[in-house]
């Protein structure tokens, strides 16, 4: 223990002169790449935490999809394809959105508090490095982990949902070709008139159908029996059943089927066997945004309270309990406060065509079109998210800068 350092024995002298020999910028609030890389390594080497993150972001979707792939391969008649649009929406807006936020928050709370609880914080402070830089180094380090994990999980979901998607679209129980134009759907409906009339739902205005239309509807024999149709509104009382009980001609049946197809086209055009490229890109960005919010807020909260466990619990409560309630409840005089909930804001930014489970959200037509959600403009939603990111970062950094080490 008596060997000298290779750097040699510095001779006493003017401290200013000595420090001047090797200037550095440790007072700068900007973290160095080395600090970020070291913090990334420190987080990545937390085996238990990493296993949990991988399991939730990649493991759950992967296991779910693999089981579906196997079941479909073994018994294709009993089990549908593993992928497809509906599976995609369920896994993204359900699993990755909600659990991605929670695991990101867990990572954030860990990054924000663990130096303090493990006694490493004082070692870092004694280096003279700016405490703000120590805080800021955690942001890119943690985001590099959580963003990449969520991206991997999302890629798995997209890949399976696209490549293992059903070959045809199941629309109201009828196998319909995908991506038909309106004319194409008319043509297809004309040649599958009985299936269309008996299975497609449709909505007719208050004036009701014409007598000829009603007659055809009533007299096309359906295997699911009278009333098997999904007529959503059928004009004034008495309009139904007014036609004669005579089998209509093929031309009449085709005409009615085409009419129904036209009525349903706008709904049909939003049905996919697998998600579009555009939807996948938007969904990916949206899920990553949610993960980033979870991490940044968790980091600030962890730093603020100096504890991981309590921080994680609070974040779970926010995501699983408070956000769903405050996103949908109509509380008099508190609606503006409710709009400050970050989960409501992100739900409003959900891509069009992606229903949001749990936390509220889009449904067909996108987040802001969901009547269940408390209304909020996109601008307000963006401002709320920015406020949460900036506010919690300031709180966390302030606590780290003022905390007794």
């Amino acid at each position, binding site marked *: 223990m008596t060997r000298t350092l290779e750097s040699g024995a510095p001779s*006493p002298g003017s401290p200013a002169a000595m420090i001047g020999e090797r200037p550095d910028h440790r007072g700068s609030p900007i973290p160095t790449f080395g600090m970020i890389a070291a913090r990334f390594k420190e987080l990545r080497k937390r085996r238990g935490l990493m296993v949990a993150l991988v399991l939730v972001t990649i493991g759950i979707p992967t296991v779910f999809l693999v089981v579906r792939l196997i079941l479909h391969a073994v018994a294709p008649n009993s089990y549908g394809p593993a992928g497809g649009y509906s599976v995609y929406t369920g896994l993204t807006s359900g699993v990755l959105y909600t659990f991605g936020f929670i695991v990101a928050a867990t990572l954030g709370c860990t990054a924000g508090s663990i130096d303090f609880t493990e006694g490493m914080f004082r070692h870092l402070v*004694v280096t003279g490095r700016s405490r703000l830089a120590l805080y800021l180094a955690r942001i890119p380090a943690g985001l590099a982990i959580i963003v990449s994990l969520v991206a991997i999980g999302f890629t798995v979901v997209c890949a399976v949902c696209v490549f293992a998607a059903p070959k045809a679209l199941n629309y109201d129980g009828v196998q319909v070709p995908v991506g038909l134009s309106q004319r194409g759907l008319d043509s297809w409906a004309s040649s599958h008139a009985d299936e269309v009339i008996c299975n497609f739902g449709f909505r007719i205005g208050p004036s009701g159908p014409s007598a000829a239309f009603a007659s055809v509807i009533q007299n096309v024999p359906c295997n699911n029996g009278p009333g098997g149709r999904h007529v959503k509104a059928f004009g004034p009382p008495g309009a139904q059943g007014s036609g004669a009980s005579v089998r209509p001609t093929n031309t009449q049946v085709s005409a009615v089927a085409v009419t129904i197809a036209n009525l349903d086209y706008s709904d049909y055009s939003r049905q996919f066997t697998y998600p579009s490229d555009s939807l996948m890109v938007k969904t990916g960005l949206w899920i990553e945004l949610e993960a980033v919010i979870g991490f940044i807020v968790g980091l600030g909260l962890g730093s603020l309270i100096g504890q991981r466990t309590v921080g994680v619990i609070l974040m779970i409560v926010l995501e699983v309990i408070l956000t769903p309630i405050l996103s949908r409840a109509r509380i008099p005089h508190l609606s503006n406060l409710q709009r400050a909930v970050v989960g409501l804001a992100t739900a409003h930014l959900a891509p069009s065509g992606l229903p949001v489970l749990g936390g509220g959200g889009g449904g067909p037509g996108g987040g802001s079109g969901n009547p269940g959600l408390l209304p909020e403009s996109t601008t307000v939603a963006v401002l709320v998210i920015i406020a949460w990111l900036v506010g919690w970062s300031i709180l966390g950094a302030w606590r780290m800068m003022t905390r007794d080490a």
Partner: protein
Amino acid sequence: MGMNTTTFHAGSDQRANDAQWAVETHGLTKKFGPNIAVNDVELLVPRGCAFGYLGPNGAGKTTLIRVLLGLTHADSGTMSLLGYPVPRHRDRALARIGAIVDEPRFHGHLTGRENLELLATAREDAARGRIGPSLERVGLSGRANDRVAKYSMGMRQRLGVAACLIGDPQLLILDEPMNGLDPAGIHEMRDMIVSLVAEGRTVMLSSHLLDEVQRTCDAVAIVDRGKVIRQGPISELLAAASFAVEIECSEPEQARSLLQALAIGGEVEANRSGLAISLPAGTDRDILPEIARVLVEGGISLYRLQENRASLESWFLQVTSRLGASE
């Protein structure tokens, strides 16, 4: 400095030279609610020496170190480290300081080397290159790639010293560095501190192991209830302490009468074999030949005269208990 403190060789007028002192505090105070942990501390730690900061448990040793390093804020007073006033230039000062505060704790899931890498990134670029030599110096090279969770207390203590050394510090502040070390480890730590001082560094250490401090340090400060009550070179402090003289002679009662007439200022007790004399602090050592002369001229046969100087430990107990009694 306060009236109970012993000055260093340099007079107080030389304090203006900031670079002279590795640590300099004036009126430093830190309170926790009604409790004063650091009480108007005037401390001067000279450069290039091993300096012991001694005090009983709860005396405020660690709190002072934490205040110096910016781990907690001071309520009042001024301080400078290596000539840099802090907190204004704390980053510049800390660039040349290595410190262990309390029990050295690290990320248990990382290896010793990885922990040092994490700390090196927060220091200057050259710090990374000093990791290997630092580990070698503290004898941890062979275990550097083991996870710290598997380290013993002594190994973590060594890793803490290595963490100090990667900054190539001019000043090392070590809080109880002998804690958790076995006798061989204490011996190695003592040698290392001596070698660090020999390289021109300043080592300030707090400890309750007074014997170790006496062997290792050149100067000390005694702190009690947050206040520095003595400071200076150990040799000067002990020279100024009270001491005892044992005398083996014939006719102890007659000898006692002779010495009482001499008015030496201490207590003289006769026993079967001779005398036991307690001399107060500040007594000149020249009193010893005077005692011998008086006894011999008085017809007493003098067989043995032995001066018993106080150890640092007994002196520490004297000054701390005296303060307590006076309060």
